[in-house]
């Protein structure tokens, strides 16, 4: 990433030496952004003065720097905003409003196709279809953007930041509200996605598939209809993210499907229907995560091998763990479970009795979801207790042999 930055800085410093500045404003000689781009030479700077510009499908076909002064580009539902077809493009300080809806094309506020070394920053999108749409692009930065949709159904809405077949992209400090998917990545590698806020999206806050070697950190995903879904990817790192209030029958804090060799660390899962749902994912390390007041903290379906859960805090979840399958190749060790009632005679901070995180009732609820209505009833407490004393139905091989006595991680409050 450092080399990327230096290249960009070098590029722009060359710009400063050789380039000229073109000013666009409503009363200037040039009052049209597309005319300004036509007139500009490579590596020129175009400054768009404050005002509203009614333009659409502005094509950027040369390396150029476009800087606004919070200038508004109102597309008025005629098409998309900018169409980047060149390398080394810099776009900043603009507001792009009202992108056209389409059922056949993916129209966006900013589209980049086969672009390299671009920067998109400080841009506010109001009511976009897609906001930022990258295809086959490399080495770009997308940061400090605000994307606000006014969508109320999945069919008529697009994604906030949509990347397809791209590489080495940095997505930072963006705020995405009320789109279809907040951030969507497909065939993207070596991307880093940090400090973004993605909330109230109609589908997933973050959704990625076939995207290897990516890093996701310090993001906040709140109130998304289906939470975050991560599929068919290898070597990913998900750390220090917050997943909160993702409620619904198919809503997950984090859904992992066919993920291999990942690290999921220091994340905070709060009040989700399911904290983490895992399907067919192998060799994942779950460390230092906090699961607080979720319906199901972790739900593991079949085909998960060699996953390691250590040093996590399970705090007041309705069910700590649900597990499908006859065999267990996963390790649960050294976690803190708020439902643990054992003792620690030698005061080493580790409980002397193993903890079995699967209750009989969670087993029942798995087969009959409606049984959840009996949760906390005296009868259920009784059968849970008797099952605990003499396990018959619940798997004996899933247990934490070294449960911690005190919570391990601190909750970071923002």
């Amino acid at each position, binding site marked *: 990433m450092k080399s990327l930055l230096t290249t960009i800085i070098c590029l722009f410093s060359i710009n400063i030496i050789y380039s000229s500045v073109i000013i666009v404003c409503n009363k200037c000689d040039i009052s049209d952004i597309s005319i300004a781009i036509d007139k500009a030479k490579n590596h020129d700077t175009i400054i768009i003065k404050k005002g509203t510009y009614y333009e659409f499908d502005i094509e950027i076909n040369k390396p150029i720097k476009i800087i606004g002064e919070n200038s508004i580009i109102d597309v008025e539902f005629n098409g998309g905003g900018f169409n980047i077809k060149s390398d080394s493009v810099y776009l900043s300080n603009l507001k792009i409003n009202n992108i056209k809806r389409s059922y056949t094309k993916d129209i966006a506020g900013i589209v980049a196709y086969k672009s390299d070394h671009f920067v998109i920053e400080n841009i506010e999108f109001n009511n976009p279809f897609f906001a930022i749409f990258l295809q086959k692009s490399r080495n770009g930065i997308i940061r400090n953007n605000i994307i606000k949709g006014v969508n109320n159904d999945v069919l008529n809405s697009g994604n906030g930041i949509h990347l397809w077949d791209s590489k080495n992209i940095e997505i930072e400090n963006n705020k995405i509200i009320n789109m279809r998917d907040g951030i969507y990545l497909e065939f993207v590698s070596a991307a880093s996605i940090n400090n973004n806020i993605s909330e109230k999206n109609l589908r997933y806050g973050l959704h990625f598939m076939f995207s290897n070697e990516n890093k996701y950190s310090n993001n906040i995903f709140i109130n998304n209809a289906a939470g975050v879904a991560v599929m068919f990817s290898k070597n990913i790192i998900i750390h220090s993210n917050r997943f909160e209030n993702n*409620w*619904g*029958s198919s*809503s997950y804090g984090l859904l992992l499907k066919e993920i291999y060799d990942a690290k999921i660390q220091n994340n905070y899962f709060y*009040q*989700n*229907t*399911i904290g983490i749902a895992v399907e067919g994912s192998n060799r994942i390390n779950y460390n230092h995560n906090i699961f607080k*007041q*979720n*319906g*199901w903290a972790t739900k593991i379906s079949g085909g998960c091998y060699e996953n390691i859960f250590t040093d996590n805090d399970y705090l007041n979840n*309705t*069910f700590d763990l649900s597990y499908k399958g006859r065999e267990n190749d996963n390790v649960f060790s050294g976690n803190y479970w708020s439902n643990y009632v054992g003792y620690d005679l030698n005061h080493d901070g580790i409980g002397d009795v193993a903890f079995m995180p699967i209750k009989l009732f969670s087993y*029942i*609820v798995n*087969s*009959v*979801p*409606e*049984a*959840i*209505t*009996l*949760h*906390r*009833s*005296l*009868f*259920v407490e*009784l059968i849970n207790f008797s099952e605990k004393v003499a396990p018959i139905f619940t798997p004996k091989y899933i247990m934490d042999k070294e449960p911690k006595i005190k919570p391990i991680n601190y909750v970071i409050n923002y």
Partner: protein
Amino acid sequence: MYKILRYSFYDLIRSKWCYIYFGFYFILSSSLLFLNNSLAKSIITLMNVIVVLTPLIGSIFGAMYYYSSKEFVELLLAQPIKRNTVFLGQYIGLSLSLSVSLLLGLSIPFIVYGMLISPEITNFISVIIIGVLLTFIFTAISYYIALSNDDNIKGIGIAILFWLFMAVIYDGIFLICLLTLKEYPLENFSLFSILINPIDLSRILIILKLDISALLGYTGAVFQGFFGRKMGILIIGSVLMLWTIIPIIMINIKSKRKDF
């Protein structure tokens, strides 16, 4: 009716059982606050206890009080007083005194702890309301049971059995039904089964407040619509009211027909 109500209320409020009941809740809530060190957690535990315990105590007291004051009732009935005023007065006096012990026993420690200025006050009020409603419901039912059985051992036995049925056995049967019928859509069935059991209803109210993520998550659209927060609480409240009114009407009918 008011005179009889007042008489049985004062009679009961001076009896040692009321003090024991009050003392129990007082100690329970203060120790919960002391051990948990947090209002929110204490209220959660309290809800769990109240849902099971107030019906039990209501059941036992209702039947016991009827039998112990039977002679007094017979004496009253010799006077020119309407029958239903005697029985209703007694029943309301009894439920009121139990509710007062519950209310005082729970709220004094919580108020001292600073409940009045905390956001948990709505949860606490709903605990109290649930407790009072359950007291009224189960006292009425056991009073009715006692009224229908002259033998006091049998009466108290049936009252306790009724409590046991509602608190434990009912859920067991419900669960067995769910497990055997799991191939069928069960949402309406389980909604209905919960609505006809006041203890289950109160418990659902707790879940609505605490574990809503699990409840709303795994049960399809019918549940979501039904137990959406405000609507759910409203429906539960009105069904609990129905549960109080119906046994009172039954007491009325029974007392008119009963031969002393």
